[in-house]
């Protein structure tokens, strides 16, 4: 009988243990009013670390910068600042903070909080990448290189509600820059260390952190001290889930309200549903090929141009891209305010002539074997295969495909150990210089060996012009020089895709794919 009892006991144990464990593991509150499928787990909620998209999205929910942008027009709107003015040369700025701005612990937001935050960002000891946005502020570069201490930064708080900044150079789009998620105030506690692990996070934005389970979700609640609190959903869940297919499934069953990453294969069927949940919009980003001009054959501009013109971008888009992307003939994405749109120059016959000419100039009978390097992602793979076939058919050349991890690709590009490499640039503000600066001869991300003094001068001269049509025309001329050199071969301009449930209003669509929760309101 003993054995039976024992077996029965074990059986009971086998039932009880899972139930107990399950009860232990299920400590989640019910579904939030608004659920965001946010991709990867944010590296940190510290705004100084908010350099990637998932972090930026969370930080926007938690913190309010001086300026927020309209979700459709990207017009600067009052955020923590109620109003602002600048001198005519754009080098000195004064911001008047709202009288009703509060931290989630009830303290008022004061100009000092911004001063502390900006100094902290620029301080090399913080190790924030966002410091790059503040390099035009007086003394920022000296502080960065360790020559001055952080309190010499050109930002001051003459009174609790007034914030003053002085700049050394006029940045391209300073107001929109101030809307970046990293450039938010920080409430420094008595210990002097903000964002300490284990302490509650104090925020000044629409929401505050209610709870957080690593790699699962961040539960947010309305910041009841915020002036507009009543307009927003009472609770928000930020889900950390890096499987796009899974997030799609959850969206379709109504478990998620906003999905930012959609499997490319599903975009076409989703847009065919035509129920308004898929928000596709052109985006300020360009997918391109870096050509290593230090390689023998690729040093010849005719050969590079042949590679460029022999690509059939329309066919590539049809074969490999989900749908909303525009084939690119220029580097600057056409959405940047008032920017021109270029016609495609794809021309196989001309490409063949150019190749012949280039080979003759180099004294070659045929092109040495080339390699196209790209990083591990299905889309890059598909594009690489299409490129391989198009070059083979148009020019009769065989390009080897070399697929590598992102880190290896970056290392190879950095050390100049490549022929052709996949690259991309996503604009973080709406000025053409954000693209054109990448290929200045001393720019760290140029990596192509392309160095043209005339191009450098043209970009810098044009950038210094006051905003307006004349400046854009000058920048366009500079871009023409870059395109003619074919050191960078643009393929297409990105599109952004979001799935948004009808429960949400004011989501908006814009070329920077920015969505400020300040504009988002409870829907039906």
């Amino acid at each position: 009988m003993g054995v039976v009892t024992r077996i029965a006991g074990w059986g009971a144990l086998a039932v009880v243990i899972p139930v107990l464990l399950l009860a232990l593991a299920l400590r989640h509150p019910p579904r939030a009013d608004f659920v965001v499928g946010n991709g990867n787990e944010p590296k940190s909620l510290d705004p100084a670390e908010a350099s990637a998209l998932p972090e930026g999205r969370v930080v926007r929910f938690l913190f309010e910068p001086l300026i927020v942008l309209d979700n459709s027009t990207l017009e600067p709107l009052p955020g923590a600042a109620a109003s602002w003015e600048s001198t005519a040369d754009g080098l000195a700025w004064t911001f008047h903070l709202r009288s009703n701005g509060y931290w989630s612990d009830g303290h008022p937001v004061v100009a000092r909080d911004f001063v502390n935050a900006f100094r902290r960002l620029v301080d090399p000891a913080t190790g924030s990448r966002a410091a790059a946005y503040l390099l035009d502020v007086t003394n920022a570069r000296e502080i960065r290189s360790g020559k001055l201490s952080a309190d010499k930064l050109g930002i001051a708080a003459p009174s609790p509600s007034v914030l003053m900044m002085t700049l050394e150079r006029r940045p391209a789009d300073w107001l929109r820059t101030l809307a970046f998620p990293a450039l938010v105030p920080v409430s420094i506690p008595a210990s002097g260390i903000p964002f300490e692990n284990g302490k509650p996070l104090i925020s000044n934005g629409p929401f505050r952190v209610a709870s957080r389970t690593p790699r699962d979700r961040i539960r947010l609640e309305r910041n009841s001290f915020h002036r507009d609190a009543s307009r927003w959903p009472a609770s928000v869940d930020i889900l950390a889930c890096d499987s796009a297919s899974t997030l799609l499934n959850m969206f379709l069953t109504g478990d998620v309200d906003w999905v930012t990453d959609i499997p490319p294969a599903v975009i076409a069927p989703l847009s065919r549903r035509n129920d308004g949940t898929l928000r596709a919009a052109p985006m300020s980003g360009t997918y391109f090929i870096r050509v290593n001009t230090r390689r023998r054959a690729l040093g010849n501009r005719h050969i590079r141009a042949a590679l460029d013109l022999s690509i059939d971008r329309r066919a590539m888009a049809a074969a490999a891209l989900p749908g909303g992307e525009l084939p690119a003939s220029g580097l600057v994405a056409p959405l940047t305010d008032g920017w021109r749109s270029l016609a495609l120059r794809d021309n196989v016959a001309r490409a063949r002539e150019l190749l012949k000419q280039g080979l003759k100039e180099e004294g070659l009978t045929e092109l040495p074997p080339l390699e196209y390097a790209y990083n591990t992602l299905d889309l890059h793979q598909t594009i690489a295969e299409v490129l391989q076939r198009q070059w083979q058919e148009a020019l009769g050349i065989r390009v080897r495909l070399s697929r590598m991890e992102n880190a290896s690709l970056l290392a190879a590009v950095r050390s100049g150990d490549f022929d052709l490499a996949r690259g991309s640039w996503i604009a973080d503000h709406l000025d053409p210089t954000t693209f054109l600066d990448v290929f200045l001869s001393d720019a760290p991300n140029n990596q192509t060996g392309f160095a043209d003094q005339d191009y450098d001068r043209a970009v810098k001269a044009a950038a210094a012009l006051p905003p307006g049509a004349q400046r854009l025309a000058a920048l366009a001329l500079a871009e023409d020089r870059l395109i003619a050199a074919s050191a960078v071969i643009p393929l297409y301009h990105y599109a952004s895709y979001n799935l948004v449930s009808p429960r949400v209003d004011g989501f908006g669509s814009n070329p920077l794919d920015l969505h400020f929760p300040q504009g988002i309101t409870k829907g039906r």
Partner: protein
Amino acid sequence: MHLSFPNSVTLLITSLVVVALSRTGSRLKHSRPLTAFLARRLAATFITVIVVHACAFALMRAVPGGPFDTDPRMDPIVRANLVARYGLDRPWIESWLSSLGGVFRADFGPSMAWRDNSATEILGAGFPVSAALGALALFFAIVIGVPSGIVAATQRGKWIDPVIRSVSSVGLAVPNFLVATVLISVFGFGLRWLPVAGFGTWRHAILPAFALSLPVAAALARLVRTGLLIELPKDHVRTARAKGLSPLRVLWVHALPGALGPAVAYIGPAAATILTGSLVIESMAAIPGMGTHFVSAAMNRDYPLALGAVVIYTTLVSLFNVFADLAHARLDPRIRL
């Protein structure tokens, strides 16, 4: 070579424990077999963990490139700061010892990819989720597998036996991800009975646990069936039956204890199977368990987190093996520890 004080202590303690444990086997020869068995197996577990930790650590250090090399826009100053903050510039023996010392204190260090939490916190949050899912899967496997095996063995020669045998063969052959996709499509999207992904209520756990349990249930059914077929013709079972005991009682009291031996010994491998499956299932169903943590840590080169996960998995599987052997011996008196 200069070693810091805590690291020298780690080194000393580790070597002492290894030496002491490796001698316990011989010293405990005359004490109770259970004590000797446990001492021997725990020593083996300890050594396994150290060896695995050392191998994994060596691998991490041997491969060029670190967790901070993926970012093209990162300032060299910032990178240098980070490398120093995470101690990646220290000599390898130093880092290895302090990492090993951390393992003994259940402190795996700060996570490099997720700055707000230590690796221990992240793994600690994922562990109960995975454990619950795994326990539920094991429970499903036992509830499905053992009765099927008993039915197949007792109904041998009838139609049900080949059916159960074929189903269990198929169950062993179909990969987890296929089962999970079918289950999600049918019960999640088709019938709308259960959520398709996520974690939060008991309903979330059912589909993934079921998908995880299938190969284990299939294996259990086969083991129980074979075990019973060996046991049923034996003398003591025949005697019991001849005494006129009810068939259920014969089965329950006389045949099953012997027959379940191989199935109980299978708990160790079953735990390994379920843990392995959880890597795929957790990421498919967006379940915040250890499996997803481990896969993404390995992909992100988050050294402390990946290392911590491997150490935990090693310990778990070793302990389950010890437990399985122990249980097997309890159930089957012929087995000596």
